[in-house]
């Protein structure tokens, strides 16, 4: 008998969007169950329902054959169901121990008992948690381990992971899979939400494929023939592969970064002396484990963060030059949520879109540009005047990417440009980036998706511990070697 079973779950959001239609799903003891699907297929919604974060519009939930209703995640935890979200539920300014204590709910444990128990759990799973450091200072992998320990402290039997590998890389992913296998051997049921087929195949015992809110297929691992089969199930049709473009980057650098040192908001040095140059018409991929200084590097080059020392020089541009920049944090940074699509399409070039000494906005020009941005990647918006907050996440991402590409500056920094996009849109974005490079724009591509970096880049710089440890030329590209370098130079951030 499964530990938990969902029957005929339908979820309609207040806005009228149907996220799940008549979905059946279950998790058994001692199995890893992959939930595979594109972005927007309804995977996260389903798992939030299973873990008490959302209420289904209709349908039933059974734990050990007993009908239950979850009013909150806390309710679900009482039945032993817990979820690790994409955005970790940790308070960054508090220590690891405080964060663990917060997650105990009604479980009473003294501090000493807690430390002992955490020690035991860590040992079993091969974790090495430092308890008295603030979470701020930890890498994504370490944060994930805190979340796992916290769920185990609550004696959960089912652990749900939402895209757990999206912030991890190479060996950190392996480490995570090791922990999953350990949990499985201890009899836990595990749900692994992902859109990465290879990972699903690597660890899971069962695979459920979702598309447009429906379950398309339920397969045992042994029933899967090949990746192609899963791709077809997920997407329904073939993706057009990236054309093999003959790109010829020039030798002329357009951006020189020299001995750059950058601190984060808390004053911790995250970029520790980085030097490289970017040539016109090339895509320079920056590969690395999340939190190794990529964001600070991007922000420093984009002019959002002043470096502690070192130089960023754009050849042939004056000192006020700001490159195009697609930030990873689209909601907090990339758009003004309460303002219109139109305004958001020129948010980084307001002065260029105004006339005269009083800087009156040139609405004809703005409207024209906004229309271009919207049609470029097919942003779905009620109208140009509608506030961006009424757009879905994917459409906001398309708006930002489109805007930054169309702005036509000579340098573009793209941080996680395809995050949150479905496969087709992601492919569109990749094609657009590639095309932009062939027009002579220099692109810095920061992505946690190594496949994406390998596909698009002319060179790959590996960043680790705030330093560029090696730059690979296209001829030398080797995923394994790149992975090893990601963990070189003292491994991931301490």
């Amino acid at each position: 008998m499964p530990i938990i079973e969902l029957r005929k779950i339908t979820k309609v959001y207040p806005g009228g969007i149907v996220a799940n239609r008549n979905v059946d799903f279950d998790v058994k003891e001692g199995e890893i169950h992959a939930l595979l699907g594109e972005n927007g297929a309804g995977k996260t919604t389903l798992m939030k329902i299973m873990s008490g974060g959302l209420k289904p519009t209709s349908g039933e939930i059974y734990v050990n054959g007993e009908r239950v209703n979850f009013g909150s995640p806390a309710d679900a935890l009482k039945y032993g169901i817990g979820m690790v979200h994409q955005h970790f539920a940790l308070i960054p300014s508090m220590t690891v121990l405080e964060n663990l204590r917060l997650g105990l709910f009604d479980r009473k444990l003294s501090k000493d008992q807690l430390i002992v128990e955490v020690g035991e759990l860590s040992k079993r799973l091969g974790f090495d948690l430092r308890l008295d450091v603030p979470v701020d200072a930890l890498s994504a992998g370490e944060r994930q381990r805190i979340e796992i320990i916290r769920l185990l402290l609550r004696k959960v039997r089912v652990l749900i992971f939402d895209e757990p590998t999206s912030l991890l890389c190479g060996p950190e992913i392996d480490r995570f899979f090791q922990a999953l296998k350990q949990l499985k051997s201890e009899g836990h049921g595990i749900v692994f939400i992902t859109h990465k087929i290879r990972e699903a195949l690597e660890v899971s015992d069962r695979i459920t494929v979702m598309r447009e809110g429906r379950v398309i297929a339920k397969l045992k691992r042994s029933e899967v023939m090949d990746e192609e089969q899963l791709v077809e199930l997920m997407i329904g049709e073939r993706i057009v592969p990236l054309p093999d473009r003959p790109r010829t980057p020039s030798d002329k650098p357009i951006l020189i970064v020299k001995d750059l040192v950058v601190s984060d908001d808390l004053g911790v040095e995250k970029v520790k002396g980085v030097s490289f140059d970017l040539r016109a018409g090339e895509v320079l991929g920056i590969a690395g484990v999340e939190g190794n200084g990529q964001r600070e590097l991007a922000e420093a080059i984009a002019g959002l963060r002043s470096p502690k020392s070192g130089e960023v020089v754009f050849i042939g541009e004056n000192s006020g030059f700001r490159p195009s920049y697609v930030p990873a944090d689209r909601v907090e940074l990339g758009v003004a949520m309460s303002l219109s699509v139109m305004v958001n399409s020129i948010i980084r070039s307001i002065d260029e879109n105004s006339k005269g000494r009083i800087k009156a906005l040139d609405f004809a020009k703005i409207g024209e540009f906004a229309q271009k941005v919207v049609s470029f990647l097919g942003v779905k918006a009620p109208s140009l005047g509608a506030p961006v907050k009424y757009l879905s996440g994917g459409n906001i991402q398309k708006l930002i990417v489109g805007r930054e590409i169309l702005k036509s500056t000579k340098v573009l920094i793209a941080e996680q440009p395809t995050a949150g996009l479905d496969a087709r849109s992601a492919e569109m974005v990749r094609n657009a980036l590639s095309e932009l490079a062939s027009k002579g724009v220099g692109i810095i591509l920061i992505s946690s998706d190594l496949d994406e970096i390998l596909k698009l880049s002319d060179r790959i710089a590996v960043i680790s511990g705030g330093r560029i440890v090696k730059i690979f030329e296209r001829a030398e590209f080797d995923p394994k070697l790149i992975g090893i370098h990601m963990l070189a130079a003292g491994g991931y951030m301490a």
Partner: protein
Amino acid sequence: MSIDISGLIFSAISLMTPVLLAGIAELLVERSGVLNLGVEGAMLIGAFAAFMGAYYYGDLGLASFIAALSGMVFCALFAILTVSLALNQMVTGLAMNLLAIGITSYLYRASFGWYVSPIPPHIKETLKPIDLGALSEMPVVGKLIFGHLPHTYFAIILAIFGWWLISKTGIGLKIRAMGEDPQVADSLGINVNLTRYTLLLAEGAIAGLAGSLLSIGYYNMFLDNMTQGRGYVAIALVILARWNPMLLIAASFFFSMVDALQLRIQALGLTYIPPQLALMLPYLFTIIVLLALGRKVRGPAALARSYKRQR
């Protein structure tokens, strides 16, 4: 001319009571991520309710109870608007304060006649200090720390309790967590709204009590808008104290020293310091200290941000 230092300290301790009471209540509320400007209005409502209670029932204990209760009702309304409906905390607080000013002055006139007479209605008795007999005979400190209103001791005990609660207990940890990130706290099974409601209701009661000191403790009458921004000062003192209850006691004391000094200046009729300038001193003091300490302040990350639960 000489200013009697121990007398000054005595009045500072006495005067600090309302701002410390309101301040510690506000501090706890702010640690949970809510900025309640309505503390000013709750004090005013408390002052009014206490006066009415004392005037009509002649019982100061009952009057204090009514003050606390009405402060609580007032803050409950604020809680409904900002916690349940997630309205803008700052604007709601301000509007509530305007409402408090309007309602108290309206009801005052509705009760005592539409035209305020030259001799405003007053009560015969005001709150009495605790008589600790022999203790107050102790040399030097005896006179300073004994012989205050019970509220004063309550305020100090409350501040120390607040410190213990915030920094030493599991509940404090939860309060701090929701002040940093209510969404995360919620996902960890912490009942954010219930906690915030509880803290706000407690704040209402305490602020109502603090306000009652003005109308039935220090004075024996009610005046329009008689809190004169003391609630706002309490909020400023919380910033000065960097959200630390122990520092809040110190901040309230120093503020009240200036206030006591200002009253003394007026009482002595020192002609070279006009009374209006003297009245200005405590406010000026607050701003100057804010300017001096400004840079080092970091409050709860989610302070004054509306939090709406996603379901």
